[in-house]
């Protein structure tokens, strides 16, 4: 699956990611959480090759990622960004089916797959024929997810996918997404700064700060056994009702 070995990233003199190693658990959802600038998005972008690491290696299915094979690897991964990143010149159907058509799928097969995904993501009828500018934010995000799932990738990477949605739309989408991830048994990485969302999705939560992993485990473990003052402060800053992380033990 996806594996990071001593991966780091610097822009000029500034090291935004200290050497980090991480193995993703197949079929599980891993959430990267932390404040802005903690390195969580950088880490995700390294995984799909949008950023080349300054040092260290990324392995996908045991093979080292290089500029030569990255294009092929991307086709086995799905990537979702805020607001969907849909192409304005293509209809919803055109957006979702673009890559399959490019790879030479037959039209019927493309359409069958698109419609299957529309049912899975509960996209409203008729939305497939509209253009991105005619759709709501929630619909656009569902399409972004459909596009990422189109080629049935083994890994799905999501960069703050629900950041721009209002709370009720977001609630529905979270429910649907978790159901999809669990039923399809995908390996998922989700980046968020929302502790509630992290707990809702994450089999494993990875808390980052200052360009490194501060603590890794379940949310419950973090609340009960925070690894440092930083973890305590971060959890309490979320003001989750009834949740208060303990002070770090003096030992």
């Amino acid at each position, binding site marked *: 699956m996806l594996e990071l070995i001593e991966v780091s990233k610097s822009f000029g003199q500034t090291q935004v990611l200290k050497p980090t190693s991480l193995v993703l658990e197949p079929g599980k959802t891993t959430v990267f959480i932390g404040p802005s600038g903690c390195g969580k998005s950088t880490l995700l972008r390294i995984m*799909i090759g*949008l950023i080349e690491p300054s040092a260290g290696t990324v392995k996908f299915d045991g093979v080292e990622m290089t500029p030569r094979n990255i*294009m*092929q*690897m*991307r*086709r086995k*991964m799905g*990537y979702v*960004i*805020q*607001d969907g*990143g*849909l*192409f*304005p*010149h*293509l*209809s919803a159907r055109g957006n979702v089916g*673009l*890559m399959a058509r*490019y790879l030479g799928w037959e039209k019927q097969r493309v359409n069958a797959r698109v419609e299957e995904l529309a049912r899975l993501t509960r996209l409203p009828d008729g939305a497939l024929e509209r*253009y*991105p*500018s*005619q759709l709501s934010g929630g619909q656009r995000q569902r399409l972004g997810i459909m*596009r990422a799932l189109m080629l049935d990738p083994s890994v799905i990477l999501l960069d703050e996918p629900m950041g721009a949605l209002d709370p009720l739309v977001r609630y529905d989408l979270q429910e649907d997404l978790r159901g999809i991830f669990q039923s399809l048994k995908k390996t998922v990485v989700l980046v968020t700064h929302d502790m509630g969302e992290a707990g809702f999705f994450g089999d494993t939560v990875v808390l980052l700060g200052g360009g490194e992993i501060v603590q890794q485990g379940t949310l419950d473990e973090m609340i009960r056994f925070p690894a440092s003052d930083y973890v305590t402060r971060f959890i309490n800053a979320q003001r989750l009702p009834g949740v208060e992380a303990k002070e770090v033990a003096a030992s």
Partner: protein
Amino acid sequence: MKSTSPISHLPAATLLFLVVATTAIADSPDLPLVRIGSKSSIENVILGEMLTLLADQAGGDARHQSALGGTQIVFAALKKGDIDAYIEYTGTLSQEILKGQRVRSDEDIRAALAKMNLAMSQPLGFNNTYALGMKADVAEKMQIASISDLAKAMKAANGSKLKFGFSDEFLKRGDGWPAVKVLYQFENQPTGLDHSLAYRGLDAGTLHVTDLYSTDPEIAKYKLKVLEDDLACFPEYHAVILYRADLKDRAPQVLENLLKLEGKIDNSTMMEMNTRVRIDHDRDINVAGDFLLSKLQIKTDSSEEKKWVVIGRDFVRNTTRHLLLVFCSLSAAIVVAVPLGIWAYKYSKVTHGILGIVGIIQTIPSMAVLVFMVPLLGLGEKPAIMALFLYSLLPIVRNTYAGLKEIPDNLKESAIVLGLSRQARLYLVELPIASRSILSGIKTAAVINVGTATIGGLIGAGGYGEPILTGIRLADVSLLLQGAIPAALLAVVVQGLFELLERLVVPKGLRLARAE
């Protein structure tokens, strides 16, 4: 003009479709082809028509590339062999064309021309040089016949009231006022003003002396006295026929006929002919034909056609030529500029280079581009298309580059992470999203092109520039409008066509997105 006469009876619509073939049809292999050129002044066009009529009468297949802009373009065309003969002035030859070669006499000029395989006739008679003029009645009353008389009068008590007004060029040129002032010892300070205002000033009596060209039609119209340049201050501008030396072997009869003009046209005759065209709006070909008949007893074929036939035929021809210029230059520009814009976007190392170069090209004046192109490409459509092509690059390159550059990063990244190749991203995502911007660049280029294509009139490429420039030369507003109105309408039509094209080319999703 003569070259199209064999097909002038064909219906206009047929002509439209046959335009490309016309050159072939008009070629008559038995007759020696003689191409006459002319600069764009009234005088030069009349004399050009005269040469053309003479060449035709002597059995040549004569064509007149009329009103070809300035000295540099016409001389370059002669040197290149695109024209065989045109009217030049000895002063222009020694001061401008052969400048730096220290030519002092006509023999020097002939020797220098011979090296370029060119030859010069004997002077035709008139000397179109600078002159000082004043109202004839005033001059007579004050007994002023020469510039020396004028200088003397200025020193006398009653003469100092005379006011001098000169064109700015005359005031500044070394062989203009500065030379006159020194040689004839003037002490007064003339004022600078526009030529047409000067004539009115003379008429009204607020101005008494101005500079003229010695064959200006205004001399007769305003009853002016041209003062004798008794100390020979002004350089001599004798009109001569400049021709390619090989004309003597190629078409000896034609050359012989042309040279019949030597010594036949004096200053007053030339002035009268200028007056007929400039003031009376006679057609230059008729004026030329009348001269040949009355002075040389040569009857030429300058038969008058019905005016509307001429207008209709010219309109069809000009429209076709204009469209040809715009279409060819724009198509070539699209093929070159869109890839250039893509390169500028893809390779940041060349971005500044590409945008800089096309930007600089845009700032070169069209006249300079033509002067540069004619020696390379000759006269006609080629240099015009080349110039228009160059001017079309900037809007298309810029808009292609900007359209691609402006695509939001998240869309570019979305295309990358899908696993599309670089090529596929360009064709499936980036170019379609940038299509509106690219198309609007092409539209700008096309509209500018329709206007700029009027420069075709300067180098014999035809188009609406021909009636516009002729209209300006003859101060004939109706002729000017025959070019200006269709050019403006064409620009509007082009604009409309591109709006339709936008519906076809720009993806629906983008049009919806903008409507919101």
